[in-house]
């Protein structure tokens, strides 16, 4: 999964190449069988859930749908979700750039360990990701007593929601940038420096343009996860309506109150976000791998 953007090739053209070659061409019945099974699986497990979200959202009519979206608790959930993402994504972007710069441009001992540790949050259960902040900042936690004395609320409040969001989206941007910047090496940056550019100029004019698509790709995935995270945020949120509910948590509350149409209405916004994410991701993959000649002629 690392550096998906950097490894995805010209998929659509590829398929025809294999079909044109007698040595790699499968018989028609194999193709029908493979595509039949594959597309059925795809339709049942991926397409159907997506369709159901929108059908259920509009089951009680358009008025109910929009009423569920403009209701104050829903709006407050949207605001909190946007707030958490708008803090988590830039911080993880900054981290991704710093980590990739250090790892790709310099030699130091323990580099492979560092790369593994950066990936760590992906292998931790979201529930555990929430729990660790309870252990640090909760009432019974390391800083619980001190925070209580100073009347600072982190757990069951917005700061913990932001922290949990940062944790679960931690590796997204770094893991896109690191392999790409490692592959690019440091020749171009060294040339810029030797021609008299400052470090910052080199970074903005040489490094960033070279990695812009991978960077955008990481930001898109990071943002989608930041807005959609459920488990980690659920542990630290406290579920206070209108205060510490993000959109996914609001969906859960509505669902558990049997307000299915409203739950699916809010869920449909998140599903739309997912579709936009996939569309952007596909566009970035396509842009990142267009031959250079084509890029210049546009």
């Amino acid at each position: 999964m690392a550096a998906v953007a950097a490894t995805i090739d010209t998929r659509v053209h590829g398929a025809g190449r294999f079909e044109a070659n007698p040595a790699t061409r499968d018989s028609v019945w194999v193709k029908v069988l493979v595509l039949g099974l594959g597309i059925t699986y795809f339709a049942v497990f991926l397409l159907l859930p997506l369709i159901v979200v929108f059908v259920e959202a509009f089951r009680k009519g358009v008025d109910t749908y929009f009423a569920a979206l403009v209701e104050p608790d829903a709006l407050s959930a949207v605001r909190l979700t946007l707030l958490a993402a708008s803090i988590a994504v830039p911080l993880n972007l900054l981290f991704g750039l710093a980590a990739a710069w250090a790892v790709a441009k310099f030699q130091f001992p323990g580099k492979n360990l560092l790369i593994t540790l950066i990936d760590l949050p992906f292998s931790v259960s979201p529930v555990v990701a929430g729990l660790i902040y309870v252990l640090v900042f909760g009432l019974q936690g390391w800083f619980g007593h001190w925070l209580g004395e100073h009347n600072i609320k982190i757990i069951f409040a917005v700061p913990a929601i932001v922290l949990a969001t940062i944790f679960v989206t931690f590796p997204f941007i770094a893991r896109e940038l690191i392999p790409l910047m490692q592959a690019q090496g440091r020749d171009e940056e060294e040339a810029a420096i030797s021609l008299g550019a400052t470090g910052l100029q080199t970074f903005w004019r040489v490094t960033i343009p070279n990695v812009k698509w991978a960077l955008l790709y990481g930001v898109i995935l990071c943002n989608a996860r930041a807005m959609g995270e459920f488990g980690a945020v659920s542990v630290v949120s406290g579920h206070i309506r209108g205060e510490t509910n993000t959109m996914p948590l609001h969906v859960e509350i509505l669902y558990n109150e049997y307000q299915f149409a409203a739950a699916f209405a809010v869920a449909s916004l998140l599903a739309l976000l997912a579709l936009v994410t996939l569309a952007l991701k596909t566009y970035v993959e396509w842009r990142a791998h267009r031959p250079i000649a084509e890029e210049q002629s546009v």
Partner: protein
Amino acid sequence: MARGVSKRVLPGFGLSLGFTLAYLSLIVLIPLSAVFIKASTMTGPEFWQAVASPRVVASYKLTFGASLLAAAINVVFGLILAWGLTRYTFPGHRIVDALIDLPFALPTAVAGIALTAIYAKNGWIGSLLEPLGIKIAFGPPGVLVALVFIGLPFVVRTVQPILEDLDAEFEEASASLGATRWQSFTRVVFPTILPPLLTGFALAFARAVGEYGSVIFIAGNIPMVSEITPLIIITKLEQYDYRGATAVAAVMLVISFILLLVVNGLQAWSAKRTGRAL
């Protein structure tokens, strides 16, 4: 000396590595260590009771069993989908390819309620299965369905680039030596894609073990029957049993670390065998 200087021609090493280490420690390493520090204050019997009570053991069996089965299902269908996407042209190719990643992009809570709506007994598929006596939602099969959904992209996305890069020469050579298509597949193609298949399996399994959001809506969460381990942690927290929750979390963390090492090993093997990084 001259070598040392040329190595550090670029500025910002101290700043970037310093920030990386500080941020990594503050957000990830120190909070994660809290689990082990808190767990280490428990006595042996207390810890054992928290992590090995019958209800918790039942949750391990369900979590690991359903995760293994879901990952295995995704190996089979992931390979079929990856093969279809790389080898065949068909209408809708681009859309199918783009939507494969839906489980990465769709929030798990949304997936959870959508799958429940489909597989509940009055749902689109649930109502068809109900007369046959098959119940999916609100039981272990529901857990399996949710884990299949969230693990679907892993195998496709690890195998697909390898299949694309596979030079037609190998299959041409085996065909010219008289191999059938099936022999070419089993003897030439399959050994090449085995490492990425296993990597995809391990990634899907690791993701499924920790999954929470998509499962809890459809599982029914019946103790001893359809309660997953992450939910046990939440339940203990809600009962203010912080020590018990931490003990179970420590077990899950250790398993996560082992899986991370397995995945890294598989990826290194895969990169060596296929000549490219995943």
